[in-house]
Every structure is written in structure tokens, then in C-alpha cells.
């Protein structure tokens, strides 16, 4: 069996003391930066890139990869505990994770996020090992028209995320699209909506936007309320999810893993898109959709599993085609090229010890992360017991630093504070920030794909219907839209919304 031979050869590499040590170092750093809002894997990996000059390429990639998937574990922590998504991929975790924490179930929320991540990570590595070469050909068939249709599907799914008014969600998505067009037009290089502020040429940063809308606005909202502390100081019951939690989560974890893995392979916003899509799917198929947004454990398990398996899936286009699916993969590509190793179709053949060694290290890394994260959960939960008059200034402090360090830009800090106020008003008037952020992330890709497709087709919109993958995505989107318009389903939706409002 070639598979097992590769498997054993890979572990031989991964278990070498140096590689083992760097794997641990990578996942440890990854967990830390995942927990800290503001500092993401991209910045950290860029800073550590020169360190890899002096170590063997396999060791370097093992460490850098560890930082990336380690950050996916840590990313959920702040989402759950303080309602600030550490990464874009953890935005959706705030919806139910924070509610769980408020209900005194922060422990199980963090626990299921860690277990879900572990299960998803491990399954995805197996998938990576087995499916890497055949899946690449599928990914390559996604050209501009396919991406456009996939994004449209994403936007339709987005309307299903709406907790309350679908119209308000669509309006927020519209605002998100407008925000997403700020910066240089990628087609012509012309600045749009930049108001002669040079920093805006780059567009509005995701971090200031998300931290402002979710974090700062949360602080402002809580400052109004007098006593909330009692909710938080109630004793947290254990970190291990109970049997009922498991029963409800296991399906969500497995579905999230599958979705995340597939979406991770596609270049673009894999981890982000997958966390949103898996959440929407769970809400759709759940027998208790009314629980979502009120602390449903599936709502934590699904996206946290999906973003982890997407993080592993993203290695497929890099290792087999040399296509970086996101910035993190671009840095890994750079790290490989520094060592004169070209990622691409020939990598597995030319550098088998690297390919199988890195994959095997991921099994180890996932186990290390589980061991590392479970005992630490107790420590993170302690955070909730910190009195608000200390916690809020600290969060504000971390947000301001976080917004500043990404680009060392005071403009980003001002933007974050501005979005904080906007987010506060939005919450007051019951506009949700999540559709805005997702639309903002998807908008540049959507626009680019649309314009590129129309160049290819010479201006004809038929191109979206003649290509099978594209037509399929559009049909599913149309079916979803149509079903939401059916009165029966509509009534059900309204019931759900009514119930959700009662709970407020």
C-alpha cells in the first residue's frame, strides 16, 4: 500500500526531534496569536519568515503551517468570551458562542470549539493526504464565471443568516458591498471612495471594521446596562461538553468539516466563507432553528470545525498547484521559494519528504493543540470573571493596539472607532453587523469575477449559464431564493423571528 508507505515515511520526518520541536513551537505561537485579537497569522508568519532562512525547508514549513492552523483553534476564544472575533473566520462564532458564555456555558462552548477543531483538523488532514491530486483539477475549473456564481450563492445564503428582518440584512449587505469597493479599482487602478486619504487606497481594513462593529459596539452597549456582571460571574460548569451537547454537535462538526474542506480548496475566502455557509446550513436543517443566535451549541461547533478544515484544505492548491488560496498560503509559497523549492504539480515527486513530512506533522500538531487547549480553557474562562470596569478598558486597549499594529496606521484606529459608533447605532436599531462584514469580504471578489467574466464573454451574460458549475450554483441560489418567498416557509420564518424576539 503506497498510502501507508508514505504515511510511515512522513512520520519518520515529522518525528525527528527538530521537526517535532518546531511543530510544537508553531502551534503554540498560533494559539497565542489566535487568542489575541488584532494579531493574526499573516503578520506573525511574515515576521518569522527570516527565521526560516537558517532551518531546513521541511522544518520551516512545519512551523509556519502550525502557526496557521493553531490560530484557527485560538481564534474562537475571544469570539466566545468577549464577542470580538479574533479572525474573520470566527465572526460567525460570536453569534452563538457569546450567547453561550452569557448563559454560563462558556466552558462547553470553548470545549466544543476545541474538540470540533480537532476532529475537523484530523479528518481534513486525511482528506488532504488522500484527495490532494484529484481535487486540484476540480479547483482549477473555477474560473471567473464560476466564482461569480459561487459568490451569488454566498449572498443568497447570507440572507438566510438574517436573525430578524431580511430587508435590513440585505440593506447591511449593500453597505458592505459599498465598503468593499473602497480603494483602488483592481481593473483600472483608479481610486474609488478614497477621499484623498492615502491609507484608503488599500481599502477599508477588515480588522478595524470587524473590531469596531463587533467589539467596540459591544462595549458601548454594555456600558449602558447597569448590572450584567452576575451573568458572567455565575460558576462555569466544566469545560467538557455533556452528552446532549455531543449529540447535537457531532453532525454539525462532520458537515462543517466536509463543507470547510471543499471550500478551503477553492482559492479566495475559504475559511471565512466556509464558517458562514456551515452556520447557515446548520440553521437550515436544524429541528430547533429558533435556538440559533441564542446559544445553540451547533452554531459554535459547525463554523469552528469548518474554518479548521478549510485551513487544511487550503494547503491542497498550494502543495499540488503552487496556487496560494490566501495570503497565508502566499507566505508559505514565499518560504518554499526562498529554499528553491517550487510548489506545484511536481512537488510530491521531487520533494516527497517535505510533502509527507508536513502532512504528518499536521496530525501531531492537531493532537498537540488539543492537549494545549483543553487545560488552558480554564484560564480563558477566568477572563469572564474579571469585573467589567477592568475588562472593558482592557478590551478597548487591545482593540486599539490591534488595529494599529496591522499597518501601523492611526487611520485604522480612527476607522475602528468610527465603526464602533456605527455598530452601536446599528445594534440599537436592530441592524445586524454580520451580513455587512460578509458582503464586505465577498464584494471585491464578486466584482472582479463579474468584470473578468464579461471581458471573456465579450459582454454577454450568457457565460454564466453555459458553464455547468456556474449554472449549477446559480440554480441552487435561485431555488433558495424562491423557497424563501414561498408563503408557508415565510410563515415559519416569522414564527422563528417572533420567538427570537421574545427572548431579547
Amino acid at each position, binding site marked *: 500500500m503506497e498510502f501507508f508507505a508514505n504515511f510511515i515515511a512522513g512520520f519518520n520526518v515529522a518525528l525527528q526531534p527538530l521537526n517535532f520541536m518546531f511543530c510544537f513551537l508553531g502551534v503554540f*505561537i498560533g494559539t*497565542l*496569536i489566535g*487568542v*489575541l485579537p488584532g494579531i493574526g497569522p499573516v*503578520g506573525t*508568519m*511574515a*515576521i518569522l519568515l*527570516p*527565521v526560516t*532562512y537558517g532551518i531546513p525547508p521541511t522544518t520551516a514549513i512545519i512551523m509556519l503551517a502550525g502557526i496557521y492552523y493553531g490560530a484557527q483553534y485560538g481564534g474562537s476564544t475571544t469570539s466566545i468570551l468577549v464577542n470580538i472575533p479574533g479572525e474573520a473566520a470566527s465572526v460567525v462564532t460570536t453569534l452563538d458562542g457569546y450567547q453561550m458564555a452569557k448563559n454560563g456555558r462558556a466552558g462547553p462552548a470553548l470545549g466544543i470549539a476545541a474538540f470540533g477543531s480537532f476532529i475537523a483538523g484530523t479528518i481534513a488532514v486525511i482528506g488532504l493526504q488522500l484527495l490532494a491530486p484529484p481535487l486540484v483539477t476540480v479547483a*482549477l*475549473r473555477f*474560473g*471567473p464565471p464560476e466564482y461569480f456564481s459561487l459568490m451569488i450563492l454566498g449572498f443568497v445564503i447570507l440572507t438566510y443568516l438574517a436573525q430578524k428582518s431580511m430587508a435590513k440584512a440585505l440593506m447591511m449587505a449593500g453597505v458592505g458591498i459599498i465598503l468593499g469597493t473602497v*480603494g*483602488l479599482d*483592481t481593473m*483600472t*487602478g*483608479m*481610486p474609488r471612495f478614497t477621499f484623498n486619504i*492615502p491609507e484608503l*487606497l*488599500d*481599502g477599508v481594513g477588515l480588522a478595524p471594521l470587524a473590531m469596531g462593529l463587533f467589539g467596540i459596539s459591544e462595549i458601548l452597549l454594555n456600558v449602558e446596562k447597569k448590572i450584567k456582571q452576575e451573568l458572567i460571574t455565575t460558576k462555569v460548569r466544566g469545560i467538557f461538553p455533556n452528552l446532549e451537547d455531543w449529540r447535537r454537535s457531532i453532525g454539525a462538526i462532520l458537515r462543517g468539516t466536509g463543507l470547510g474542506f471543499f471550500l478551503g480548496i477553492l*482559492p479566495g475566502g475559504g475559511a471565512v466563507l466556509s464558517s458562514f455557509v456551515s452556520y447557515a446550513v446548520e440553521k437550515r436543517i436544524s429541528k430547533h432553528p429558533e435556538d440559533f443566535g441564542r446559544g445553540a451549541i451547533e452554531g459554535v461547533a459547525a463554523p469552528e470545525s469548518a474554518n479548521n478544515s478549510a485551513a487544511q484544505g487550503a494547503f491542497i492548491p498550494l502543495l499540488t*498547484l*503552487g*496556487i*496560494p488560496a490566501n*495570503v497565508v498560503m*502566499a507566505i*508559505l*509559497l*514565499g*518560504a518554499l*521559494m*526562498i*529554499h*528553491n523549492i*517550487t510548489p*506545484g*504539480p511536481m512537488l510530491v515527486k521531487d520533494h516527497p519528504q517535505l510533502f509527507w513530512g508536513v502532512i504528518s506533522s499536521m496530525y501531531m500538531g492537531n493532537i498537540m493543540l488539543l492537549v494545549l487547549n483543553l487545560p488552558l480553557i480554564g*484560564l480563558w474562562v*477566568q*477572563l469572564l470573571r*474579571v*469585573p467589567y470596569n*477592568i*475588562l472593558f478598558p*482592557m478590551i478597548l486597549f487591545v482593540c486599539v493596539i490591534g488595529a494599529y499594529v496591522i*499597518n*501601523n496606521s492611526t487611520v485604522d484606529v480612527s476607522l475602528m472607532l468610527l465603526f464602533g459608533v456605527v455598530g452601536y447605532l446599528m445594534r440599537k436599531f436592530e441592524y445586524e453587523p454580520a451580513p455587512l462584514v460578509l458582503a464586505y469580504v465577498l464584494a471585491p471578489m464578486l466584482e*472582479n469575477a463579474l468584470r*473578468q467574466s464579461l*471581458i*471573456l464573454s*465579450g459582454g454577454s451574460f450568457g457565460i454564466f449559464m453555459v458553464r455547468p458549475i456556474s449554472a449549477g450554483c446559480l440554480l441552487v441560489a435561485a431555488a433558495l431564493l424562491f423557497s424563501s418567498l414561498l408563503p408557508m416557509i415565510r410563515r415559519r420564518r416569522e414564527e422563528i423571528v417572533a420567538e427570537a424576539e421574545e427572548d431579547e
Partner: protein
Amino acid sequence: MKLVRKYLPIIISPWIALFGLLSAILPYPVFGQDFPNKPITVYCGYAAGATTDLTARGLASGVEKLLGVPVVVENKAGGGATVAAGLVASKKPDGYTLGVVSTGVIAVRPHLLKLAYDPLKDFTLICQYSRYIGAVTVLKDAPFKNIQDFITYAKANPGLSYASPGMYTQQHLATELFRQCKGLEFKHVPTKGGAEANTQLLGKHVNFVAGAGQHIQYVKQGAFKMLAVFNTDKRDPNYPDLPTIKELGCQDAPALGYIVVGPKGMPEAVYKKLSEAIKKVTDGPDFQKLLGNLEIPYDYKDRAQLEKDVLVEYEFYKTFLQKMGAKKD
């Protein structure tokens, strides 16, 4: 205060752990006297992992060892590196702020954008160490053996599509000049960069790509082949069979360079110390190996040469972009 003392450790301990780890791994040399006696910041005009970023980091780690102070690369991607350039121009010319950008921030972008800096006056040019390359690149199994086949095929099938690393990049402009001179008709698909452009060719969504550097990796792997090189006067020594588009009788867009710049008015002593250190690093075996691994040419120009050449580029792109109908915002 008691409360603060009680809870502060929980909150700041991850930060301390992170910084502790980073400072343990990163090499921190001893601080010297005179210039430089504090960390030097290098703004890189492109994202982490981009070729420019990789060379900037290679350069920084070499200079760090020679000058004995930390040299920190900060990525300020965007606006075709004009964001980084504008930032450098706004700083004090004390040598502690440098930029690694493309000559495009001086020669090309000013004709397209309203910028916060004066391209010809606001910089101390320190040196150029490499240049950007370009080539007409097709899939390995494409039905043309050489550029002549390709031209014949393109004449018979007007409307071939190609992906470029962006609008008004040197690769787009060279392909445009080639198209005009051979009387061909192409559909131009601008992308966000070389990686996306190559992916479109790999997925067969376009007929060819105006390769911008990374395409070489695919050529080496046998997925792509090149038909002609542009943005150069000379043939590529690694691929001596490929003609330049100048040899084909076409005009070419001059190659932009990877350059190191500082704010204008840098003291002569500081400039000298920096440029000598950089020269020593770029000539050294480590940096040469890095360039070799990235397959980008070593093309060193000192300040005098660079100042002369960048003016030529500036004038070329000014006339050419006007002719193409590009309007300044």
C-alpha cells in the same frame, strides 16, 4: 488597585508570552553609536510573500548584520506601492526610514494617480538591485511551437484572451505594444497579480498570460512554456532560444526596477553608509542565491545610473499612457 493587580496577569500574560517568544527567536544585535543607533524601518510596497517582499527581507537581514541594528520590514501593500512610497516621502531623511518599492511609483503611477508626493523630487534614490521581467507564456500543450506560430494563430483567431498582473503594469503595456505592432486583437483580463493570472491560464480560462515572474516556476515544472520575452533589451540567459519582442520588430515597455529609496535630503554620510552596506549584501552569496532561487535577475544600478534611467522610464510611460487614453484621476 487590588483588582487590577489580581486580573492584569491573566490578560497580559499571552502578550508577554508572545513578545518573549518573538524576542527569543529573532536575532537582536548590539546597538552601536552614531548612525545607525536605533532600528531601521523598511516599508515594503507589496504584501508579505510577494517576490519584492522576499528580496526586501533578504536585504534587511543582511544589512542588519553589517550595521548592527535591527532592520524591520513592514509591509504597506497597495496602490502599486504608492502607499509605501508616500509614507517614505513623508518621513525624516535620517536614514531610519527606507522603502523597497518598484520604480513604477516614480515612472508610472504619477501619470495615473494624484499622489501625495512629487515623484521626481521627494526621494533619495539609493540603488536598484533587480528588475521585473515579463514573457508571453502559454500552456505547455498549446498548439504553437514558437512566437511565429502564435502570431499566425492569433491572426486567424482574433480575440484571444490573456491575463495580466494588472492594468497598466509593464507586462500589460508590453503585450499591448506587441499586439499593436503585429496587428492582433486580444481580450485583456487584468487580475490582482501574477499568481491569479497564472491560475487563470492553468485553468484554461484564458489563452495566454503576460507572465510577470512567477510564471517561471510553472515553466520549470513543465506546465507552461514561454514564446517570447519582453520588458528587456537582451535575451534571458536561462532561455537563450526565446526572442525579445524588440527582435520581432516591436516597441517594448522598459522594465521597472526593484529599488531602495529614502526621503529626500538624506545626509551624504548616512547615504554612503547605507548604500555601501546594501551593495555588500546584494553582492554577497546569500542574496545572490536568493535571487537565483526566485529566478529574478541581478541588475544593480547605483544612484547616478538610477537617477538617469528612471527619468527615461518616466518620460516613456508619460507619453505612452497618454496615447493609450489613460486619464489621471
